[in-house]
C-alpha cells in the first residue's frame, strides 16, 4: 500500500502536474515502501516493453485512380466552400456584376416615357389635394380663432359692465352717506342756533 501524496501509477505514466510530480519525487526519496513500489512499477513497464513492435508485412498505400478521386468540379467546389475569404470575394464579385447588369441593361427611356405622364398627373392631383386640405385647415383655424376672440371680447365687456355698475353703486352709496352727514349737520346747526339777544 502506497503512502505517496499522489498515485505512483500517475507518476509513472507522466500524468501528474509538475508541482505534484516534484512532491512525489521528494516523498519517494524518503519513503522506502513507496520507493520499492515505484521500482516494481518501473520493472513491470520495462518488461512489457520487451515485446517490440513488428514491421508491417506489406506496405499500405493507395493509388491515384481517377475513378476514386473527387472530380475536378467537386474539388473546386470543396476548395471554394472551404475558404471564407474566397467565398466573400466571390459574393462581392457577383453583387458587382449584378449591379453593372442592371445599370447597363435596364430599359431607362421606355420606363421614363411611360412613367412621365403618370408622374405629372399624380403630382397635379396630389398638389390639388394638398391645396384643398391646406385651405380647409386655414379656414377652420381662422373660424376657431374668430370665435375665440369674440368670446374673449364678450367676457371682457361683461367684466367691464359689472365693474362699472359696481363703481356706480359704490359712488351712490358714498353720496348717500354724505347726504346723511350733511342732513345731520344741518339739523344740529338748526337745533343749537344761538339766541338773538346775544348778537
Amino acid at each position, binding site marked *: 500500500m502506497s503512502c505517496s501524496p499522489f498515485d505512483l*501509477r500517475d507518476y509513472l*505514466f507522466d*500524468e501528474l502536474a509538475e508541482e505534484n510530480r516534484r512532491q512525489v519525487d521528494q516523498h519517494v526519496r524518503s519513503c522506502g515502501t513507496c520507493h520499492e513500489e515505484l521500482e*516494481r*512499477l518501473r*520493472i*513491470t*513497464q*520495462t*518488461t*512489457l*516493453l*520487451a*515485446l*517490440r*513492435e*513488428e*514491421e*508491417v*508485412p*506489406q*506496405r*499500405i*498505400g*493507395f*493509388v*491515384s485512380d481517377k475513378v476514386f*478521386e*473527387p472530380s475536378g468540379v467537386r*474539388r473546386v467546389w*470543396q*476548395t471554394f466552400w*472551404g475558404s471564407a475569404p474566397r467565398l466573400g470575394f466571390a459574393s462581392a464579385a457577383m453583387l458587382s456584376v449584378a449591379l453593372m447588369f442592371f445599370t447597363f441593361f435596364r430599359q431607362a427611356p421606355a420606363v421614363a416615357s411611360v412613367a412621365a405622364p403618370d408622374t405629372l398627373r399624380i403630382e397635379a392631383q396630389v398638389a390639388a389635394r394638398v391645396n384643398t386640405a391646406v385651405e380647409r385647415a386655414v379656414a377652420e383655424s381662422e373660424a376657431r380663432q374668430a370665435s375665440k376672440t369674440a368670446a374673449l371680447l364678450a367676457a371682457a365687456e361683461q367684466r367691464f359692465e359689472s365693474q362699472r355698475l359696481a363703481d356706480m353703486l359704490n359712488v351712490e352709496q358714498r353720496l348717500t352717506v354724505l347726504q346723511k352727514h350733511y342732513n345731520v349737520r344741518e339739523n344740529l346747526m338748526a337745533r343749537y342756533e344761538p339766541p338773538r339777544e346775544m348778537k
Partner: protein
Amino acid sequence: MIFRAVEDPDLIRKARRGDVEAYNLLISRWEKRVYNYLLRIVGDREDALDLSQDVFLKAYQNLQKLDDPARFAPWLFRIAHNEAFSSFRKRRPEGETVPQSDFAGEDIPASASPAFPIELSIAVTTALGKLHADQREAVILKIYQGFKFEEMAEILSCPVSTVKSRLYTALDVLKTQLAPAKSRGVT
C-alpha cells in the same frame, strides 16, 4: 526561405484536397503503430493487415469530418478500435463478447528485441493473455502507444475514470506476474 518539417496537419489538408500521395505519406507515418495495435487486439497478422487497410481507407473517406487535424492520432485509433471490435462481432455469434483468452500473443510467436531474451517476451505475452480484453487494450494504448488518458477515453469512448480503472487493475495483475519474474531472471 524558411524550411520546416511537413507535419501531419499539412498532409491532412493536402489529402482533403484529393492529394493521394500526401495521404500515402501520412499512412507511412502511422501504419506500423496501427498495425501493431490491431495485431495485439485481434491476434492474427493477416487480419491485422486487412483491418489496417480498412482503417486507412475509412479514415480517407471520412477525413472531411475530422474537426481538428491536431487530434488525428486518437481519431485514427478510434476508427481502428471500432474496426477491430466490428470484426469480432462479425466472427462471433450475437451477444457473445470477446473472451478473456482471445489474445493476439497466443497465436503469434513472441518477437523480442536483441536486448531482451525470448523468455521475457513469452512471459509478457502470457501475462497479457490473462487480462480481460478491455484491460489489455488499455495497456496497449498506454504502454505501447503512449496515449494520454484523455486520448484513450476518446478512442475507447468512455470516461477517463473508466480508462484509469481498467489500466490500473491490469497493471496490478501484470506487476504480480512480471516484476518477480524479471527479478528472478536478472539475478
